């Protein structure tokens, strides 16, 4: 019997685990009977937990157009993620969601040229959007992805990005790494500088995600290039417990990241205190 109480998780089964980088793995999760555990829109998140270990919010890295499963790309940073990185396929997890808003793919972003800018694990939530946009490709204009990480080994979804996406006529992919290394022929440098060097039209709708400092500097670069705050979106991550704007810890001013976010338009963010 289920009461529909959002705080009570349901079961998911980990069916596949892929290593993306030295500290990031992607976990494919299905409902016990197969299929995605619940419907969602790109940008939304889910609470994953291992009873007795912990529970935390992770962005869903697959698009809802994938009906058979959902995926989570998770960096190893703490107690719970240590445990998740140690588990094997077949492991059941407790999962609840979806939580938060989504990127406005069917409204504000529809028909627009899209510029995705990601740093490190920040590509995880944007991957859901990119997969969705590629599925409904005719609904959107030109698509560009600028993606950077510390090194080539730290680029998540490297195979997918450098093979599938980069070779596709659907979109342009621009990769960069922080420091030169052997076997790397692409750009070397930080994401904000790389963005400045590429000649994007400030009329693009832009979606930015990455570590806080990368987001901050990238947004500064975009404003310098004349990009519009009302067409620029980012997605935030703060500590969460309930996922529904009640437990009180993920607020930035009067907004709750779990409920009013995680996707924020930059003009909304500008009115909030700098506590993120």
């Amino acid at each position: 019997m289920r009461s529909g109480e959002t705080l009570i998780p349901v079961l998911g089964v980990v069916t596949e685990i892929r290593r993306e980088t030295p500290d990031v793995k992607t976990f494919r999760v299905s409902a016990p009977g197969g299929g995605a555990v619940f419907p969602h829109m790109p940008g939304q998140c889910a609470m994953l937990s291992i009873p007795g270990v912990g529970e935390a919010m992770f962005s869903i890295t697959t698009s809802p157009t994938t009906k058979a499963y959902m995926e989570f790309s998770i960096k190893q940073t703490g107690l719970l993620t240590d445990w998740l990185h140690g588990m094997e396929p077949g492991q059941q997890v407790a999962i609840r969601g979806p939580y938060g808003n989504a990127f406005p793919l069917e409204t504000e972003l529809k028909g627009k040229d899209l510029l995705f800018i990601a740093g490190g694990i920040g590509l995880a939530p944007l991957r859901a959007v990119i997969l969705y946009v590629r599925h409904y490709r005719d609904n959107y204009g030109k698509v560009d992805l600028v993606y950077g990480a510390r090194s080539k080994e730290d680029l998540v979804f490297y195979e997918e990005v450098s093979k599938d996406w980069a070779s596709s006529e659907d979109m342009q992919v621009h990769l960069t790494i922080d420091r030169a290394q052997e076997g790397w022929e692409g750009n070397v440098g930080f994401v904000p500088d790389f963005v400045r060097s590429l000649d994007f039209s400030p009329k693009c709708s832009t979606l930015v995600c990455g570590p806080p400092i990368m987001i901050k500097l990238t947004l500064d670069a975009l404003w310098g290039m004349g990009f519009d705050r009302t067409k620029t979106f980012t997605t935030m991550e703060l500590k969460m417990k309930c996922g529904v704007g009640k437990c009180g810890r993920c607020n930035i001013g009067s907004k709750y990241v779990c409920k009013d976010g995680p996707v924020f338009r930059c003009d909304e963010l500008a009115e909030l205190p700098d506590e993120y």
Partner: protein
Amino acid sequence: MLKLPVSQMEELFASIASEQSLYLPLETNGLIAFSRWEEGKQARFDQLHCAGSVKDFFFPQTENLALFKTSGKEIHIEENRDPEEAFVVFGVRACDAGSLSILDRVFYDEPADTFYQTRRRQGLIITVACNAPEETCFCHTFGLDAADPGGDVAVWLLEDMLYWDSRTEKGHALTERLRGLFEEAGDQGEETVRKGKADIGKIIDRLPLRDLSLERFAGDGMMEKFDAPQWESLQEACLGCGTCTFVCPTCHCYDIRDFDTGHGIRRFRCWDSCMFSDFTLMAHGNPRPSRLARFRQRFMHKLAYYPENHEGLYACVGCGRCITKCPVSMNITKVIKTLGVDQHA
């Protein structure tokens, strides 16, 4: 309005308790606290506020959510709700009764919290008017009336008589069940209550916090308050404990945690405090790393963020518990006064 001699209150309690659990201010472990009434236990209406607030009945300090059993790679998930109980809380003051509408807006907001919802459905509030408001009272600042305290049933204890006025469907149903105990208050009774209310009003007019004003907090200017330089001196004495949070009838932050019982994992939620340093701590950093940031969060939430999300309603009911309980005597009235004076003095 109905009435009953105060000397027969014990019978009233017994009648209520025959079908519902009855909680009253009782002396328990050296405190006056809402506790389960049993025959022979002396209700204490002589101190205005119970140590804990009425919040504790609807949003208890800890509450079970789920039970997990794990074996190998398998997990079994079960809902684990504490047993439902129909209950009456008698002796709630206007401030505490007012706090429920603040909590309702949070917990009823979609998706509603079904644990809170169930308790609200099962609970009935009988308020008592405050014949002797304390110097720490400032419920009037938030539009509450200590003389007319609301709830499902409002009660006045005046001149050895208990006056009973039911206000809601739930209250009417209880009144119907207890009808045999009461007499009609009649015109004379109504007059006594009217006079009692006027007397309380006169005391409220003399309270030291009578003129506490939130004028400076109304409207926009959230960032101006956030950046106010006075936070620095206000937070200096704060110990970073959770006393104010936990005795507050409107604070509602919580944590969700697992407890290994040895036979499974019990997931429960419990009160948490934005004053605690680990409240927002993540593996990769803390957005509120200083005590100043945490102290400011608590008051900004009550005086700016909550009102912004709830049509200007403040998340404080002026009960004064933080005034009497803070170990270092720092409290919301000092914050209101200091920030209300001159933002950039």
